[in-house]
């Protein structure tokens, strides 16, 4: 870790109980300036509770939270001045237009009307809502509403932005737009805390990831670091019309091969490490005159990491 990089958010021993249920269990985290920090975990893993505790919306049982080096409390308005929040659910007023909503929330941070006008214009441009400024939220599609939700959270140009599952129920086009926007905000200097249960999103935009399960942090690191946790570094699938046990045994005996199985005209080989596994397998098949169809090579995903650490899938199949 670079010692010159400032810690923006520090969570020490955070515990949050909902009655008998422990939603966050002794959580420790350091989020550095300029990071896109992903909180990844299945539903109910404690991501949103952690965010709400960080924002002092929720009281917590134990622990301490500091943001920008100061203890975060409900009355830390100097800290809040530099924080932007994009809630999981769209939090806007139905009685106000797109422009008015953005201006309203921006006015809670920026006094100067002229400056605010400029910031609102930039937020509208950033989220691509130029054609909808006079629309009321009820007239907007789900994707546009999400974009409005983002615009309301980032218009005042905060140094730290919380995105709590901003892409839930959003079409792929809007999702890409949102993710690009988040990366762009990060490039402009904002530190981002991003929660999601979509691992591909987290992989795409986060520089560092914490995987939560049952309120505990089960793994943390950059994507590649996390993938190293997984024993299976490569899964090779080869379409093979027929394969006898002798050939299968030869493949299993290869260095770096963890397991190999043949079923439904497909050979699946799990490998750990090594750089020429595919070539070695193909050579054996060629030597035995086994015809080969399509070949796939899969690298480990965050889901594999989660599976490795917890023994369960990161999210339900959709």
């Amino acid at each position, binding site marked *: 870790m670079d010692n010159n990089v400032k810690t923006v958010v520090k969570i020490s021993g955070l515990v949050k109980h*909902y009655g008998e249920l422990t939603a966050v269990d002794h959580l420790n985290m350091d989020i550095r300036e300029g990071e896109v920090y992903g909180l990844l975990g299945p539903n109910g893993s404690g991501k949103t509770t952690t965010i*709400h505790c960080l*924002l*002092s*919306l*929720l*009281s917590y049982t134990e622990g301490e939270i500091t943001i920008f080096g100061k203890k975060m*409390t*409900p*009355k830390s*308005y*100097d800290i*809040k*001045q530099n*924080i932007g*929040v994009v*809630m999981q*659910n*769209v*939090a*806007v*007023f139905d*009685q*106000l237009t797109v422009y*008015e909503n953005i*201006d*309203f*929330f921006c*006015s*809670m*941070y920026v*006094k100067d*009307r002229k400056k605010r006008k400029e910031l609102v214009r930039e937020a509208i441009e950033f989220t691509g809502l130029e054609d909808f400024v006079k629309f009321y939220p009820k007239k907007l599609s789900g994707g546009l509403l999400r974009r409005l939700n983002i615009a*309301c*959270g980032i218009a005042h140009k905060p140094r730290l932005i919380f995105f709590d599952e901003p892409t839930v129920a959003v079409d792929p086009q809007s999702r890409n737009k949102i993710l690009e926007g988040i990366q762009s905000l990060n490039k402009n200097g904002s530190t981002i805390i991003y929660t999601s249960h979509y691992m591909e999103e987290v992989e795409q935009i986060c520089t560092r990831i914490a995987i939560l399960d049952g309120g505990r942090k089960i793994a943390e690191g950059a994507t590649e670091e996390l993938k190293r946790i997984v024993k299976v570094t490569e899964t090779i699938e080869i379409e093979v019309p027929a394969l006898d046990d002798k050939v299968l045994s030869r493949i299993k005996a290869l260095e770096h091969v963890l397991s190999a199985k043949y079923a439904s005209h497909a050979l699946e080989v799990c490998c750990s490490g090594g750089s020429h596994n595919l070539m070695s397998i193909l050579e054996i098949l060629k030597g035995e005159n086994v015809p080969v169809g399509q070949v796939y090579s899969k690298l480990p995903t965050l889901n594999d990491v989660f599976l490795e650490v917890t023994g369960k899938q990161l999210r339900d199949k959709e």
Partner: protein
Amino acid sequence: MFVSYLMYEIKMYFKTKDVLLWLLLFPVALGTLFYLAFANTWEESLFTQLPVAVVCEDKTSYFLDFVEELSAGEDALISPVFTDLETARLELEEERVVGIYDVSDGISVTVKENSIRATILKTIADSFVHAESTIKNIAETSPMRLGAAIKALAESSTAAGEKVLSPKESDPYTGYFYNLVAMVCLFGAIAGIHIAVQNQANLSLPAARMECGAMSKEKRVIASYLATCLCSGLCSIISVSYLCFLLGVDFSLSLPLCYLAAAMGANTGVAMGFFVGAIGKFSEKTKCGIATAVSLICCFLSGLMVGEMKGWVEKHIPIINRINPGAIITDSFYLPAVFRDYFGYGLALCKLLLMSLLFIFAGIILLRRKSYEYI
């Protein structure tokens, strides 16, 4: 920050359909309905001399003296026309008279339709028959006491004379309109609830966002309260103006004082709503239902639905009238209008102010929590 927030609150207030419905359209509609319903009744009850045809061939009948007595002077009850039966019937048919006294065989009263004025004519005839029969009885059984009996009857007649309690004659239905204004004021509670809900992160999504913002809850509550009071006060003033200028309801109070009473009433309504909104974790709709029910009960007890209710409450549970904001708002119009009691007016406004402060204080105490256990 504060001014901008205040302006947006005002804007949102006038874009909230529920609020506009209950605070502007409903009172205007109900006021118009009252006006139409009471117009005929009030006109009928306005006392004027009742034109009546008297058919009497026997010029020595005591009833003729009685009729002459009732039609004499400025306070005359009736305006008799002595005629024959045929002409009398024609006069009644063409509604030039309210009824016919036919003294040909006893005293009979003929009216075209039942009304308050027809009832008065019947009562007059009944009272004559009753008095005549009493005197005849006494004359037959105790002639020595006849003089005393006639004197007693004359005194009872005097005792039943009008005694003016108020310096100004009041339309008995105006009270309903005062109650209507009280209802508009108390419906401000619906808007008051919005202040509390909008500042509780566990009840509203925008509230959660604002709670993360750089503006303190205190500032937000004050700005929302000011905006809501301003708007609800304006709605009450519009309602008073509508009743006063378009429906011609006589408030008998200088307009600025009327408006002040309406604005103070609205402030109390908003404060009451704020307090209700700050209690518990029910949804905004549930809280609005509670506030509407409380407002309607207050208005019912102050006589919005049954005119005599306030009097009944005063007789049986007077404390209710002292603490019912509906009754106090009604008093602030009624006391100066009917009794010229400006001290009572001032006292009513002070009570409303005190009530508002209590509600606001209690509401702030309830909202003061710093963070939430659940969201």
